[in-house]
């Protein structure tokens, strides 16, 4: 099966992007370079094509009740134009996907899901629908999306719209915002740990918005940013990547994301019983942050040992461009996850010393 192009494919080629197949989509790993792009997002502004993300709508009088049943977080708590981050789990507590639920109103929810899981998520939701009075639609193919991230993101975007962006709070959305003549839905959300917006428009409009933002951001030093720095940025910001920190085998409690799992919310949710059981019995495995003491870079999949015994593996590891340290996340047997615990990371048959540190890698101002 050939990989799909987003509406912005031609722009990536024009900008000299190094295009690869990512989850069946042709997207650039980088344009100028991973480190300059990463630094642009931390210090100025970067723009990402995230049109590959999936969008699924749930409409009808049972919209909130249905989505609340699917999700670990409490969907009944958000108001119109508010957004909530949540996990959608299997009965065994494993994760179907992590996603954002945008509440347009009581009868209309807009879910933004991982590109690699959108078909799976849609099929799962249809399977779980039962007698809920809802209409579920996978609109992914008709929605284009970009992310504008960095301390200058708002200044950049404000140049293109009359709508006062100060009115859009963190994890809130606004529909029908005209950006350089294009009707968009925007949200103050992102996957980088910086301030910024995600902008949704139709496939044609998103191309105009992309180019307008690149032009408007020139004075701030905007760079188009690829998949490479998207991963280093989210990793530094302690945000999970499905398939790494959470997955069908790694549940949200093990990942350390209990805040988004409301074990005692009023409504039932798929996985509630099993996750409650695991929480009360004590988790056998937990995600921990670590820093290498010896030389090397830990990479995902590498084994972690203690006194010669395997106790877990690296879920993500990098030479952090912002922190300039070799750090990572690891899923470990719980007894080894206290801060300061010394571990060994096996890097290509060499044993390299490491120690557990806080998962909160970035110190925010």
């Amino acid at each position: 099966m050939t990989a799909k192009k987003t509406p912005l494919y031609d722009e990536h080629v024009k900008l000299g992007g190094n295009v690869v197949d990512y989850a069946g989509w042709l997207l650039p790993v980088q344009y100028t370079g991973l480190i300059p792009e990463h630094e642009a997002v931390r210090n100025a502004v970067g723009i990402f094509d995230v049109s590959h993300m999936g969008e699924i709508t749930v409409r009808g009088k049972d919209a909130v009740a249905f989505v609340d049943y699917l999700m670990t977080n409490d969907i009944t708590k958000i108001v119109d134009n508010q957004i909530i981050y949540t996990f959608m789990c299997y009965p065994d507590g494993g994760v179907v996907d992590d996603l954002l639920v945008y509440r347009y109103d009581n009868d209309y929810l807009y879910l933004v899901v991982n590109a690699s899981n959108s078909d799976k998520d849609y099929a799962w939701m249809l399977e779980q629908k039962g007698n809920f009075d809802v209409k579920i639609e996978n609109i992914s193919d008709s929605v284009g999306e970009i992310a504008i991230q960095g301390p200058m993101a708002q200044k950049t975007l404000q140049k293109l719209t009359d709508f006062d962006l100060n009115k859009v709070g963190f994890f809130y959305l606004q529909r029908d915002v005209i950006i350089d003549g294009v009707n968009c839905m925007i949200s103050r959300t992102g996957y980088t740990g910086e301030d910024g917006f995600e902008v949704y428009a139709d496939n044609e409009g998103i191309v105009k918005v992309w180019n307008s933002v690149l032009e408007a951001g020139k004075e701030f030093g905007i760079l188009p940013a690829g998949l490479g720095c998207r991963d280093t940025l989210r990793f530094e910001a302690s945000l999970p990547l499905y398939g790494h920190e959470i997955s069908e085998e790694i549940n949200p409690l093990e990942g350390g994301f209990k805040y988004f799992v409301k074990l005692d919310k009023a409504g039932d949710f798929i996985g509630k019983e099993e996750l409650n059981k695991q929480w009360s019995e004590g988790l056998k495995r937990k995600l921990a942050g670590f820093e290498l003491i010896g030389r090397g870079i830990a990479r995902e999949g590498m084994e972690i040992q203690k006194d010669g015994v395997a106790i877990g593996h690296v879920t993500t590891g990098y030479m952090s461009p912002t922190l300039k340290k070799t750090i990572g996340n690891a899923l470990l047997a719980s007894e080894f996850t206290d801060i300061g615990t010394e571990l060994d990371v096996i890097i290509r048959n060499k044993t390299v010393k490491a120690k557990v540190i806080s998962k909160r890698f970035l110190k925010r101002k």
Partner: protein
Amino acid sequence: MKVLKGLYYSNDHEWVKVEGDEAFVGITDFAQEHLGDIVYVELPEIDDEFAKEDSFSVVESVKAASDVYLPVSGKVIAVNEALEDDPALLNTDAYENWIVKIALNDKAELDELMTSEEYEKFLEEEA
């Protein structure tokens, strides 16, 4: 794309600079550009012995680790320790900043490598 004359080149974008019975080995300008910003270099130990096409070093960019292969067999007599503190030197000048110096096992192996002209042609076809 910089290709220095007088060096030997491998299919995997390593270069060899012969000095008598010894040689310096490094990665080419094409390789460093392809790798992107290099953040770590793993060096072998002095006296390590490698067969032709063995991996003797690992060069890492932010995203990935890449093996570097020895184009000719030999024993390590020196390593470029500057690369431990400043791996980006390989990006700055891939020919100036060698990775290892080896004692050559068999100079006849050099005949199996490309000349600078052959490597330039190779790059045109590959890139």
